[in-house]
């Protein structure tokens, strides 16, 4: 399954960030560019967080992302966070995967706000990897 981007345009006020941008992502690729060239804007459009002024994006079925910030629900445990976004992921599976990433039983009982920075990062990474296609959108 490829992600096909055709003639994508996006401006913020008078500043055009993307102008007739075309790209086909048919294998793992790396997006690189100078600061302010529109990398984040493109990714936000792919994730549905921004609307393009014109152009089309096809092939984004189940987006999953590791944000720059962890963005875990702070009051929930790591397991609950994974189950929340897992669309059918069981708590047992989430617990097992978190254990394999070094979470102890005590860590699994802590709310996300009390986890260390590394643990939050691992949980956020696992959330993206374990995300399954939602039954209903």
């Amino acid at each position, binding site marked *: 399954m490829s992600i096909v981007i055709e003639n994508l345009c996006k401006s913020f006020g008078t500043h055009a960030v993307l102008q007739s941008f075309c790209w086909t992502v048919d294998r793992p690729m790396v997006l690189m560019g100078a600061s302010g060239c529109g990398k984040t804007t493109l990714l936000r459009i792919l994730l549905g967080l921004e609307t393009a002024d014109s152009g089309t994006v096809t092939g984004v079925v189940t987006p999953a992302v590791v944000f720059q*910030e962890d963005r875990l629900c702070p009051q929930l445990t790591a397991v609950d966070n994974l189950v929340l*976004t897992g669309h059918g992921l069981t708590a047992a599976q989430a617990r097992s995967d978190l254990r394999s990433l070094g979470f102890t039983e005590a860590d699994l009982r802590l*709310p996300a706000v009390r986890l260390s920075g590394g643990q939050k990062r691992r949980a956020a990474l696992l959330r993206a990897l374990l995300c399954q296609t939602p039954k209903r959108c």
Partner: protein
Amino acid sequence: MVYAGVQGGIADTDSQLLEMAHVYRLPLITRLRYIWLPGIFPSFCESALPPWVCAGKSGVSAEVIGLPDHSVGDALYRAKITLSTPDVFAWTLVIVLLSALLSTVAARLLRAVKARLCGEVQA
């Protein structure tokens, strides 16, 4: 006061978590329960407590005007018109104690709900 508190809570709800919910396509109910409510409820608690306490005092004031049978307001009014100073002070003390009790119960109730909804995130 409550309206302003809730409005502030809505504005303060974590926009990054809302973006996460959008990307992971969380259902509306889940967003309300795990993102919106924990965002709004602390502000709601802070704004709801003073009106709650005022409501109790307003109730007694209404009783003084309406004089329903066997009410605190009725007793206070009768003590006043019979010039019974000890009764007036006694009923005033009852009102103060009832008000304090009501505010304590309300604060504990809201704190319990907040702990359940927001965990230990919000003090």
